[in-house]
């Protein structure tokens, strides 16, 4: 079965039109492709920055305090995104012959990533509440959640169910 690599999702988010069947599980990810994924991931993160810049209505002082904390947060989120990309790519590569042990290990990793992502979001929303205000932190968490849902919705629509 053909399965799209996560790159396709990132392409879609970045406005690209890569056909879904561009990559198959038989093709080992080449270095160029991995590099493309990293570039696209960086693009998504840059777009996120502009979402916050446009929606948090920060004063100059708030801005100066916010961005270093946000960058710290994004660097940690990036590591989780990389783990998730790796997980999806492994799933794609093993899709047709997925063993029970691989299914359990994959599920455990997915749940660990989600749990760490939720912890990070909570921890940094608290930090942002102190820097900006709880009201703006609530707005930040809403925006972050919206972006997460949009990405998740695209990703889940491309990943076939285990069989």
């Amino acid at each position, binding site marked *: 079965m053909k399965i799209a690599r996560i790159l396709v999702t990132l392409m879609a988010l970045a406005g690209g039109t890569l056909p879904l069947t561009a990559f198959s599980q038989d093709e080992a990810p080449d270095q160029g492709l991995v590099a493309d994924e990293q570039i696209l991931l960086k693009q998504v993160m840059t777009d996120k920055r502009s979402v916050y810049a446009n929606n948090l209505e920060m004063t100059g002082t708030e801005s100066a305090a916010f961005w270093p904390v946000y960058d710290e947060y994004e660097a940690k989120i990036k590591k989780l995104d990389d783990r998730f990309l790796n997980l999806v790519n492994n799933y794609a590569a093993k899709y047709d012959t997925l063993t029970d042990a691989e299914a359990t290990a994959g599920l455990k990793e997915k749940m660990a990533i989600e749990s760490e992502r939720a912890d990070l979001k909570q921890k940094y929303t608290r930090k942002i509440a102190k820097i900006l205000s709880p*009201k703006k932190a609530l707005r930040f968490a809403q925006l972050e959640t919206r972006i997460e849902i949009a990405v998740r919705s695209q990703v*889940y629509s491309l990943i076939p169910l285990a069989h």
Partner: protein
Amino acid sequence: MNRSLLALTAGMLLMGNAAAQAQTQSPNLNDDTQMLLSQIQADKAAVVLKSLELTDPEARAFTPVYDEYQKERKEIAQRQIAELNKFASNYGSMTDKAAGEILKNWFKIQEDKNDLVKKYAKKFEHVLPKTKVLRFVQVENKLETVVDLQAARVIPLAK
């Protein structure tokens, strides 16, 4: 799942006098909410059962555990609705205190949702092949995302 409960509740926010509506929520609306919640759960159960392609013995073992899961999940959904209503009633005049409380409760709800799926994935491992447990979580995540997407479309950002 054309009408999600979250969308219904959140939709109140967009009806102009959101705060007043949320504060004077009628018993009928609560009945409607409960009815919709039950309907959504029934619809969800049908999708999950169909997607898992269970054999008869698997279905017999899976269903009672899944019913337990649904019961616990419903309790979390009710807390989620309460928080949405709190958001609605505070929307026009959100204070930092109210925002802080909503955030705290919202994160706890998300954590409890994740923990619940984790807990039941372990339980399902006793009654289903591991690949079907993975499939269950995948289906659950997809359905959850459909509801979340609808909710995100109608819940305004705090101001």
